[in-house]
């Protein structure tokens, strides 16, 4: 059975059709790429899947359950986590605290216990902190755990976003341009890291990326969007030579 299935997912903003009848299917363990020129509707697709927007029509099924229009926080607890294209860290919080918030949905004590600082709440907080520390090791940020997240370099902030999303222990991880603003060396490290997330942590990964070399090396299956419509899908080798894709990126031959 597929993990995530979009069936003719469509969203319109007034007269603008941002995503038009996009359908694709992810299986468990996929490394899936979503590419397309600027304004193609990639991030909007992410926003539909994570409940930021409600699709105008079409269905989105996650683990056999329809999730179109479900609130973001519910979707996160169902097992979909994401990062953001324009980094959205909790800037004033420390690196560790950012990841703790990611784990907060697995926290099962009430507000009263926190207000009275009772042992259940203390223990849960300590457990989340320990788990967060482990995740920081995965993304190589353990040495800056106490630094304010806004003070990190750009590449580090992107990695922290991944760690924070992983802290929700999702089955499906959506990465929105994880390599943007990284230098070639950082991109290499990220490539290894994303593979590791899939292989060792068992998460299915769907990512948006503009760096073609990065996507082609990493992803096993790719969907290409242009002007909100799906124009191609398949393995990287097929996408690379697809005339429609080349036309979308470079323009038609005159």
């Amino acid at each position, binding site marked *: 059975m597929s993990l995530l299935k979009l069936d003719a997912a469509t969203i319109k903003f007034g007269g603008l059709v941002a995503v038009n009848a996009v359908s694709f299917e992810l299986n468990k363990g996929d490394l899936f790429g979503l590419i397309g020129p600027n304004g193609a509707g990639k991030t909007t697709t992410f926003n539909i899947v994570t409940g*930021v927007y409600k699709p105008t029509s079409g269905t989105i099924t996650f683990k056999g359950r329809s999730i179109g229009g479900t609130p973001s*926080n519910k979707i996160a607890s169902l097992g979909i986590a994401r990062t953001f294209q324009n980094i*959205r*860290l909790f800037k004033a919080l420390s690196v560790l605290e950012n990841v703790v*918030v990611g784990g*907060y949905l697995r*926290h099962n004590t009430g507000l009263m216990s926190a*207000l009275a*600082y009772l042992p259940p709440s203390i223990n*849960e907080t300590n457990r989340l902190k320990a788990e967060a520390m482990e995740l920081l090791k995965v993304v190589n940020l353990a040495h800056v755990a106490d630094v304010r997240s806004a003070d990190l370099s750009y590449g580090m902030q992107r990695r922290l976003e991944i760690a924070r999303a992983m802290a929700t222990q999702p089955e499906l991880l959506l990465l929105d341009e994880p390599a943007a603003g990284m230098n070639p060396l950082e991109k290499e490290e990220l490539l290894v890291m994303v593979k590791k997330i899939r292989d060792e942590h068992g998460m299915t990964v769907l990512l948006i990326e503009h760096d073609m070399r990065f996507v082609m090396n990493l992803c096993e299956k790719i969907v290409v969007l242009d002007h909100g419509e799906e124009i191609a899908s398949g393995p990287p080798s097929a996408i690379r030579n697809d005339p429609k894709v080349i036309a979308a990126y470079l323009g038609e031959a005159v």
Partner: protein
Amino acid sequence: MKFWLIRLLSVAVAILGCVGLQVAAGSQSDYVQRLLTLAGLYVTLSVSLNLINGITGQFSIGHAAFYQVGAYLGGFLSVRFFHTSGLPPIPWLIVTLIAGAAGAAIAGFVVGLPSLRLKGDYLAIVTLGFGEIIRIQVQNTPALGGSYGMNVEPKITSIAVVWLLAILCIAICRNLLKTATGLSFLAVREDEVASSAMGVNVTRAKVSAFVLGSAFAGGAGALLASFEGFITPATFGMDVSFIILTMVVLGGTGSITGSVVSAIFLSLLPEYLRGLKSASGGPLTLTGATVVAYMVAVVVAVAVIRHVYQDGGRTKINRLLWTFGALIGAVIVQIIASVALNKIGPMHEKQIVINQLRMVIFAVTLIVLMLLRPQGVFAHHEFSWTWLSKLREPKKEVAA
């Protein structure tokens, strides 16, 4: 075991401290007792608003409304039921405190649930509007005394209860911030979309903070009603909301320490200025020229200090020396300017009683603090012993 022992001990220390404060204040004048009570109430108000505004990031400027709900509910209950209840004053005071808190919490829930979908300025307008609605509604309700106000019988003064409420409010906020739940509140302040995507129930966090903050304001209101013995809608006007907000912002939004310190400072400063005496014992008077000289000195000092702190290339020592220099310079400027200006006839003749200027001084203090430290006195920091020891360490550089 050790945990509960420490917990028990700290509660005991808090109660003993508050009772001690009341005993110590007992021998003081009514005026001093009044100041202590009001300072305690303002600490509760500003720390509880800090929970809503600073920690959860919901810009509410209608805090006085919840203060008022608590005051009128507590006062009304006292008038109606104190004698039939047969309770001694202090337990009764605690009953009205709880009732006022519960009433304000319900009000907070009713207002919060629909309006917390709004953000920033829009939420501010709704809370401001709600504050006015409550005030005007009470003003037009004869059963509550209308705009004449309501006499609250019996009058009960207990500095210990006032400060215990303040300490409870501080303790709850501090506890919250130490747990993952508190971090989720902070996350809501930082970025609602991201915290929702991480599974934080944003609405629930906001409403919880709003209800809790309102409850403490309501509790403080009930204490105020019993303390004053007389309340009118004018006691809870917009200016009260704004002064509480000022306390939060001045202390540094999000910092509990900041809210406490600035609540005490801002509630006592006007009173201190009111009582200023000259050497001969009369009210302190200065000539117009001297007042102008003070203003010039303040402007000079602020300008120099701001310039020094905006220049990133300076070392800490250099900054401190310049700040110190600016202060000494300001004193010199003040002396020279006042001597010079006092030579000018009309300015020398105009006598100004300083306690008439107290609101001006209050305003100038705020302006100066906001110019020199826009993030608030304590910014996001909290007082702690480790924080004290960290002050001496050099700032760490972040390696890429």
